[in-house]
């Protein structure tokens, strides 16, 4: 087992399933025998605000919070949120981002502009960057709520963990009637990373 702790920062907007996705990752790595810790904030943040979840695994994990600048993987569910947490990444960190935009209030009101060309900005600073059509694929499959499972499919490619461990854990969290749809979502997400 590796000694080094792996740090994943999951970032998105309230209602996108950020917390469920990090719960599932924690469960997967506990099953594999790692120590896991995670941290997130509930409450006001859920009213359309920013949601982040820090997820860490390793031999022994102390802090549930990742030190600024120590994120190994930034797992962004929305473009602006991907950009917002960029400064928390290690210089050689990896980014996997949902190709999706949700306007914050100042943009809705016409007071500020939604930043342009976010994928290009990120790519110019970090070469290990992956864009996943999470929301788009979930909508094609018929349920936008499956976007987080598409994205989990994407991030699962970065770890040497068997597909069925991921799938079993994901489906455990979901009602039987949406299993088939989420199975498809997971594999469609995996296909996005190559």
């Amino acid at each position, binding site marked *: 087992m590796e000694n080094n702790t792996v740090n994943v920062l999951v970032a998105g907007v309230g209602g996108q399933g950020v917390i469920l996705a990090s719960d599932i990752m924690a469960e997967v790595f*506990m099953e594999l025998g790692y120590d*896991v810790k995670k941290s997130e904030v509930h409450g006001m943040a859920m009213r359309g*605000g920013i949601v982040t979840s820090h997820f860490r695994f390793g031999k022994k994990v102390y802090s549930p919070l*990742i*030190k600024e600048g120590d994120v190994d993987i930034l797992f962004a569910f929305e473009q602006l949120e991907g950009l917002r947490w960029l*400064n928390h990444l290690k210089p050689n960190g990896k980014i996997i981002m949902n190709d999706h935009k949700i306007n914050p209030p100042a943009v809705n009101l016409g007071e500020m502009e939604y930043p342009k060309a976010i994928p290009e900005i990120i790519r110019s600073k970090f070469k290990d960057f992956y864009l996943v059509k999470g929301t788009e694929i979930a909508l094609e499959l018929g349920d936008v709520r499956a976007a987080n499972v598409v994205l989990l499919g994407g991030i699962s490619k970065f770890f040497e963990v068997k597909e069925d461990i991921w799938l079993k854990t994901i489906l455990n969290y979901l009602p039987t009637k949406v299993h088939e749809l989420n199975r498809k979502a997971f594999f469609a997400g995996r296909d996005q990373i190559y």
Partner: protein
Amino acid sequence: MRKIMSGNEAIARGAYEAGVKVAAAYPGTPSTEILETIAQEYKDIYAEWSPNEKVALEVAFGASLAGARTMASMKHVGVNVAADPFMTLSYVGVCGGLVIVTCDDPELYSSQNEQDNRHYARFAKVPMFEPSDSQEAKDFMKLSFEVSERFDTPVMLRSVTRISHGKGIVELEEPVIPPVSIEIRKDTAKYTMLPSYARIRHGVIEGRFLKLKEFAEQFPGNRMELNDPSIGFITAGISYQYAKEVYPNYSYLKLGMVWPLPKNLIGDFFKKVKKVYIVEELDPFLEKNIRAMGFKPKGGKDLFPICGELNPFLVEKGLLGKKFKPPKPALKEPLPPRPPNLCPGCPHRGLMYVLKRLKVYTAGDIGCYTLAAYPPLSVVNNNICMGASIGAVHGMAKALGEKGKGKIVGVIGDSTFLHAGVHPLMDVVYNKSYATIIILDNRTTGMTGQQEHPGSGYTIRGETTHRTDFVELGRALGIENPRRINPWNLEETEKVVKEELERDQPSLVISEGPCILLRRAFKNYNKPLQVDSTKCRGCKACVNLGCPAISYQLVEGEMAMTADGKKRKGISQIEASLCPGCHLCYQVCKFEAIQTFEEKPIFGFETM
């Protein structure tokens, strides 16, 4: 068996394993999930949402008198509400073990202040345990009941947001059978705090405190981890994890019990370690008490911030000082913020829009509606604590006299009103105020994630129960004619609120609109509305409702003109996937540019 649990789930599990029989709470971030977990997972425990924290603690007191292990959980400011029973509960002690869980909120993720409740343990002379992860949350919870019974004292367990909402692996155990039998016992001199009896009890608790100090010296949760002796940290709770993360090889005195403090153990640590630093979040609680013992730490609050949450970054920065090199930011441009917002379809939006139109001074209270303080609504003008809106409006009215008539209003949610609003409303009537109070009855405790309360008609476990009638309650307090409004109907809402503001008597308006997320209250949502881009003038009337479903976009060329030739700079859009069809935007549009797809416009919803 091992399970990933949040600190709150682990606290609930600890209560279950300790054999708790009665658990009471009022919801409050970050404590809410403790009672929710008990209600969902541990059916043998009687669980209730009490109307407020004071009641919750009194319920726990009663259960303890009967010999049961019992608990009350609350957020940090909830302890202020429960402080009255708490301070004297310390005097009378317990029969069955009693634990008060306080969940503090450093960084104010969802709170009105950042108070450090360790001071309460010292203030009330009771022991306090502070876990540093989920496993300890469960272990210390169980231990707290033993300590409570052994020393005849209520015990406080302190969590913070990062413990309550952080998750880690917990080893599960079977529940124990508590040692105290459950029956009626009479011990009047111990439990009846007449001055003559209370004087005696004061002496007793001072003696108890000395015994607790001895316990703190022996308690294995106060432990030294001696490594590199050049630098040592005295720390507790989540701060321990942050320090350990950055400096795993230095020495530690990790305190699991933060009150009373183990003086001898601390002295030993100072002897064994060259330079001692005290790392703690918020106030210099450990530091001041340790300095008062005569020890001289090398650093504490001079290095680590007093405001906000600590984290590994701040611990490293504090210790290294000028030698600290922060990582270079990859991005420097400011980004649009994303503050929390009233949901699309929220019943508060219509009322707040009307209050804005009426240009009244609005005293706010604790709940989602305080978000209307943000632009574009910019309505709420003050907010300090649960129930304060009503007393504040009354006091302003008395100070302003004629000058304030028709110009001030208090808004308070249904759950908040039942928590702390009944008495101030009684005062409004009793002392002949002209205050206008609006109860925003959304039939749930919205901000904390939809918990039941005495006005919702359901218990914590979803059983139906009596539902407090706000109109009847208002009448009983002496309000002549409490009025009901539909907050999604702007014209009606404005008319009624205006009439009530003009009355020279106390008045009460009940704004009846269920929380848009409370599915059971709605027969169905309406069809999403749409902006007719040929008619929209880009006046932003709908945009200024602050609805997340409505956005404004600049337009150029051909698009910069309506079909009938009126110039425009931009147009509104409605995101159909977000719109539940409340029709507020339909009502504020002067150009008939917002289309409804219902047979006729519905101002609000068909509710149940």
